[in-house]
């Protein structure tokens, strides 16, 4: 095989590692990246000439490596990185994409952006300064975005006489902080980006360090990808009406997770209709099987009404059909989060309307403490509950990266205002096709005791049910709610009990002096609510 042939084969078949870099101001991140690119021969000579020229005339240096990465005019002028820049380099062993992200606190959102597509984070610490609040912030955000492998590069070792004590003390400090985070592996590497120690080659100035150089480690680290090959999720992206078979519609999309084969039985959400996979095609022909994240077109045995935003899944492996999402939210807009305001919730290929109902707390990325919050400002992170107008088909981020993430878009400015990672999907509320059948709420308006007959009827049908009347409620569940002015709160609480029970397949009989209000109808659902009572009370 000639060199070119082996090169082609390598470029075609090598695997791809995406990692993000994060560092504080002046810790030498750009210099380190510049050195990785330069020493792995990924910089072209004309680019290098232009940079050498700029270095000598504007920076009074022979070669300022950071100029290799700071692309925007304003960045070169201010000497800092503002935006995410993507860098590409390859070695015979791997191909790399670096999301090079800014260190300044006001650009945290850009760092979040870089983390969202990475499977490893390179965190830089200045050996002369030790751990800074920004080191913690960066570590925390990486972990929040599901990055489980970290490289902690302790830089500027040349300025601390290549001291093992300094290195160990910083590593210990770092461990004390990161122990609280769900991280699988941390590799500490002492280096000097400026002088090139332990960047590409092992440095002989730190004989006490026996680990790999940065590049050695990057080339060999085994990254368990965040791909999920178990749970089949296929969000419909585009309906293809072409082809010889008249009227046959193909469903185009990127497999979010799992695998699929022709002949398998599938369910389409939200309709709940079933069919079989007839064939899976790509331009080259039919596939015997397909897996995430392939982009394919699926044909079904039956003609169903399916459109963009729907999802094809396996019958016995459903995502949660949810209208109430709990998530970690990174706020990215200058206008703070507003409660009870509609945002566009974009999840896979599905955009629905939703509002942030509640902020449980704000997370302080410096000490990971939970703080109460009424809103979230730019670059703040919080745990929120979002109520959606239409259900989405979701999983938790931990379980499934592609069906566990979403963005919020402001409906007026159209800015991307937040990035969310789902921690819990509550739900199945409005979706009747997936509700356990037969459970309903009987609301008997009248005096205590008059609803008992309903319970007896249910019992005769062979179904258990929950019976609640004003007396029972007042003694326990609603004991903190007093007079008629708290009627709304009383009803809401009761309504939620009804909904939760009905969703679990259990009927409820409520006997109350109160007539169910609009809110009760909304919570329980009109179809599930059966109101009876004496005529004079109903009017």
């Amino acid at each position, binding site marked *: 095989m000639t060199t070119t042939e082996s090169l082609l084969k390598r470029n075609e078949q090598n695997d791809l590692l995406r990692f993000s870099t994060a560092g504080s101001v002046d810790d030498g991140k750009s210099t380190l990246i510049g050195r990785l690119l330069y020493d792995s021969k990924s910089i072209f000579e004309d680019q290098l000439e232009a940079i050498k020229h700029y270095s000598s005339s504007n920076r009074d240096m022979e070669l300022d490596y950071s100029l290799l990465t700071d692309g925007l005019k304003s960045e070169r002028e201010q000497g800092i990185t503002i935006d995410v820049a993507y860098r590409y380099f390859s070695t015979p062993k791997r191909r790399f994409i670096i999301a090079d992200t800014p260190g300044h606190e006001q650009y945290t959102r850009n760092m979040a952006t870089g983390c969202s597509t990475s499977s490893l984070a390179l965190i830089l610490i200045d050996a002369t300064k030790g751990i800074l609040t920004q080191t913690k912030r960066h570590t925390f955000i990486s972990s929040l975005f599901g990055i489980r492998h970290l490289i902690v590069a302790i830089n500027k070792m040349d300025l601390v006489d290549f001291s093992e004590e300094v290195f160990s003390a910083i590593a210990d400090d770092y461990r004390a902080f990161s122990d609280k985070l769900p991280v699988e592996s941390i590799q500490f590497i002492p280096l000097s980006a400026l002088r090139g120690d332990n960047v590409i080659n092992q440095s002989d100035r730190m004989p006490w360090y026996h680990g790999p150089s940065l590049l050695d480690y990057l080339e060999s680290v085994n990254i368990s990808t965040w791909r999920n090959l178990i749970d089949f999720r296929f969000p419909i992206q585009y309906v293809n009406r072409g082809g010889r078979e008249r009227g046959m519609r193909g469903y185009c999309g990127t497999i979010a997770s799992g695998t699929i084969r022709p002949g398998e039985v599938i369910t389409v959400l939200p309709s709940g209709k079933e069919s079989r996979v007839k064939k899976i*095609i790509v331009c080259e022909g039919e596939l015997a099987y397909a897996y995430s994240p392939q982009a394919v077109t699926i044909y079904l045995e039956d003609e169903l009404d399916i459109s963009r935003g729907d999802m094809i899944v396996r019958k016995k492996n459903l995502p949660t059909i949810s209208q109430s999402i709990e998530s970690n939210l990174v706020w990215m807009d200058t206008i703070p989060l507003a409660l009870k305001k509609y945002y566009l919730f974009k999840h896979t290929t599905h955009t629905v309307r939703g509002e942030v109902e509640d902020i449980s707390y704000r997370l302080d990325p410096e000490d990971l403490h939970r703080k109460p919050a009424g809103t979230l400002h730019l670059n703040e992170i919080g745990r929120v509950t979002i109520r959606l107008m239409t259900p989405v088909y979701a999983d938790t981020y931990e379980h499934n990266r592609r069906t566990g993430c979403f963005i919020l878009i402001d409906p007026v400015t159209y800015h991307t205002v937040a990035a969310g990672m789902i921690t819990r999907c509550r739900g199945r509320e409005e979706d009747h096709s997936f509700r356990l059948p037969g459970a309903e709420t009987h609301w008997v308006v009248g005096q205590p005791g008059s609803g008992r007959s309903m319970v007896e009827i249910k019992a005769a049908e062979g179904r258990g049910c929950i019976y609640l009347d004003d007396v029972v409620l007042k003694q326990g569940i609603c004991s903190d709610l007093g007079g008629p002015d708290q009627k709304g709160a009383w009803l809401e609480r009761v309504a939620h009990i009804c909904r939760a029970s009905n969703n679990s397949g259990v009927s409820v009989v409520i006997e109350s002096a109160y007539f169910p209000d609009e809110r009760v109808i909304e919570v329980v659902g009109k179809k599930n609510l059966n109101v009876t009572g004496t005529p004079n009370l109903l009017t």
Partner: protein
Amino acid sequence: MKSDERYTLTNLQALETESIHIIREVAAEFEKPVMLYSVGKDSSVMAHLAIKAFYPERVPFPLLHVDTGCKFPEMYRFRDEFIQKNKLRLVVFRNEKALFGGVNPFDLGTVKCCTELKTRALLDALIEGGYDAAFGGARRDEEKSRAKERIYSFRDKYGQWDPKNQRPELWDIYNGKINKGESIRVFPLSNWTELDIWTYIHHENIPVVPLYFAQNRKVIERNGQIIPVYPETRIHENDQITEMMCRFRTLGCHFCTGAVRSTAVTLPEIIEEMMVARHSERITRVIDHDQDSSMEQKKREGYF
């Protein structure tokens, strides 16, 4: 899962998958998308990906060639064949007013010539066509300001780019929401490198303009650039016309595109040459070197 089955994508497959996802997303979410087609190798790859993304359906949007009128004749020939063979729709737009007014790089300088014939023409073409999304074949590895470009790049109603105020772009969820008059430039090849493009062309057998291959061509050497000689080329007094084996690494207007000395006549030879070449490909474009940050400036004004 059977033991002989593979469940990981190779580098090229991963890139292809990502690009197809982006192209389909745009076709599904925008009312009137268009794909910029410059006849170059990146355009060939992008059009090829569009064909794959919608197979067996026809590509559901037209291709747009912003024509400066001074592209290489080989490019026009190739373009028409490529479009016909793949049953694509092509829209050609020229800034006729500027061309009629005699705009050229010799009298106006390359900056003004490009502004009129490329940036201006592109913006006019997008407005005239009412396109709300336009695909471009730019890659992030090409130039440093492009390294900061989003895959969905928001442009205001004047087509301008604001690098300091870009929308965050997370995972593979793209925000294509725009108001009337605004538009999105979409770069499905963002994460490809020059080597990926050539490897893919080789792997998929994608046709490219013959100018990419070495041939004996009439040229002038001027300021370190090798300028091809065509009937319209202005010959200076001390220019010497010579013949040499050369080829083009990127294709633009023939006045402003330099050749490189080369003997590479096959794809593997081109790739081999590239990998030992230590010069980035855009060095042969005269226009990039006009001023510091010239690409960033052009992009701000609406260029790709």
